[in-house]
């Protein structure tokens, strides 16, 4: 029974980790933008959900329908206005990575500043769908289960789309080798912009979903960025399936250590697992050698 409890609770926690990392793996893996303001966009979506629920008494899931397309358009615009000049002048991938880190580091403060002005710096939290559900004898809150379900759904859908559609193949080609992709008549810039915007839409969805059970404040974005980065690198940069599996693995490992060992060691377990994966497979669980 304990094993089942650990597995289920761990998967649900891991689903949340994966959910908050799926967007970054697209932005970093395909668009090659190491988006340091990623967590800020997640928190911004969380604030949006908070405002819907507390301010307007609107169901955050309805907010989700509004915020996801909005985030897509916003991120698409950010890519075209802010990041395209960097892409243009970058001589190679590494240079783009460094430049994008600097640019999005600035963006981080802009987004954070706007949130501070609008919502203030204090902690925000609300209760939504915090209803216990019994699954094979294990108690699970519906809001966390929902986040888990969405993570699995997005992860699988993206995996299938990338594997079996033309656009998906183009995106994968861009992720592996933008130069060669160009030679096969793929519009690399459009594909990268699309991936970046889609990543932005996913992180907005994640923000709305986690706001239902996590306490957040305007300054908390960096925590999400860091965790997402671990998941992305562990799963293999640019690989949605990898991010999903890495997230779930971390969740189960943390829960196992907390229940069978000491909860104080969960952080150590996370990094130990991270290290082992990188030692055995330097490009991540599902990553392929790029160069």
């Amino acid at each position, binding site marked *: 029974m304990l094993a089942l*409890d*650990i597995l289920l*609770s761990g998967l*649900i*926690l891991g689903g*949340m980790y994966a959910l908050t990392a799926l967007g970054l793996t697209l932005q970093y893996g395909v668009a090659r933008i190491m988006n340091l303001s990623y967590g800020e966009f997640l928190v911004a979506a969380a604030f949006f959900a908070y405002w819907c629920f507390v301010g307007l008494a609107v169901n955050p899931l309805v907010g989700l329908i509004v915020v996801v397309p909005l985030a897509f358009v916003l991120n698409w615009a950010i890519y075209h206005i802010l990041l395209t000049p960097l892409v243009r002048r970058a001589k190679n991938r590494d240079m783009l990575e460094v430049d994008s880190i600097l640019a999005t580091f600035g963006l981080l*403060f802009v987004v*954070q*500043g706007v949130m*501070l002005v609008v919502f*203030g*710096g*204090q*902690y*925000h*939290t*609300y*209760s939504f769908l*915090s*209803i*216990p559900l019994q699954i094979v004898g294990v*108690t699970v*809150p519906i809001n*966390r289960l929902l986040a888990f379900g969405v993570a699995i759904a997005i992860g699988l859908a993206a995996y299938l789309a990338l594997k079996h559609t033309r656009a998906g193949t183009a995106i994968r080609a861009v992720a592996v080798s933008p130069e060669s992709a160009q030679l096969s008549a793929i519009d690399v810039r459009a594909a990268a912009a699309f991936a970046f915007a889609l990543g932005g839409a996913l992180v907005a969805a994640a923000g709305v979903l986690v706001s239902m*059970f*996590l*306490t*957040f*404040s*305007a*300054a*908390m974005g960096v*925590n999400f960025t860091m965790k997402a980065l671990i998941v992305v690198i562990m799963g293999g940069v640019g690989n949605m399936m990898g991010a999903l599996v890495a997230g779930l693995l971390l*969740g189960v490992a*943390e*829960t196992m250590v*907390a*229940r069978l060992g*000491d*909860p*104080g060691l*969960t*952080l150590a377990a996370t990094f130990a697992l991270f290290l082992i994966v990188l030692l055995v497979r330097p490009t991540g669980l599902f990553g392929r050698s790029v160069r």
Partner: protein
Amino acid sequence: MRMRSLVALGAMAVVGWVLPASAQDSIKIGWSISKTGPFAAGASVTTLPNYQVWVKDVNDAGGIMLKSIGKRVKVEVVEYDDRSNSEEMIKAIERLATQDKVDFILPPWSTGLNLAAAPVFHQLGYPQLAVTANTNRALEMTKRWPGLSFWLGLPSELVDGLVETLTKLQKDGKIGKKVALLAVSDQFGIEQATAARAGLKKAGFELTYDRSYPLGTQDMQPVLKDAMAGSPDTMVAFSYPPDTFGITETARVIGFNPKVFFVGVGTAFPAFKGKFQANAEGVMGIGGSNADLPGVKNYIEHHRKIIGREPDRWASPITYASLQVLQQAIERVGKIDRAAVIKEINSGTFETIIGPVKLENGLNKNFWAVGQWQGNNFYGVAPVAKQGARAPIVPKPAFK
């Protein structure tokens, strides 16, 4: 006549800048506060709003009375954002003293920043009413730096209040001896848990669970399920706001209902009541206030009107009271003489919203160690002997 401390005179001499010789027509008050970075969440609940409310209140009343010039002077504010960074904070405080030449400096938020700032405040000769600092080394420090004062009670005193409450409940037969102890693994959690572990064992309690979890833990289920397995009568968690909310939420979901449910920092926040509504009833936590005191009652309403939300029920009323103490000390001295103001803060008795305040060796003794949500307020229940202490509701009503 305007009196300035030697430090300020020295600083003026160095930059070769002479103030206009007009009579003092304002008091410059500066502060360095975390408006961005990880401390912003705490600072913008407890500290900054109270600075703003107090400045408005003082200026609406015409200002601070200076006997030496026979009139009230308004408060003028100089504010810096320290970005939750101690080096930035120290630079800002030095700049406030030497370049902005403010008359008084209000303290930053958090134990860490206040302890880092203490030598600088002392060196520059400014009083430091370090309300949001909480350390067992307080006495040693106020001896070394007389301008420094502490307001929330020592960590050991907060734990004593908790142990006292539990001991009384146990003697009255309301709870058994089994306690589950949780703590966030950083300085605050570890210090409090160490003190609580010793105190509880001495009082004959049995720890059925005793674990710490890392800062930023996003799932409290594993910890709480194991804590629940020992069927404790009491759960004590020395937690930070995100975990305080997380622990309470998770306990509700998994149906963990110990007779005493005690959580750490954040329990006293209005957001706690806002999130849990009726489920907050009977939850205990650090701090508390006596909302039946007319001063506190009016203050809560006043704060809500000006800031747009209610203050927290632990350090907020004390922060406001500390500013009242500062104002009264300045008015009693009657001029900008920081050394004399420090002396007055340390020796005088002051009437504030939380009642009379008289520092003992730089420590405020008018504080609550343990509070409990009863209706719409987070009332103080310990120290048990303190005037206005409420009888705790035990067992806590089960979560719905």
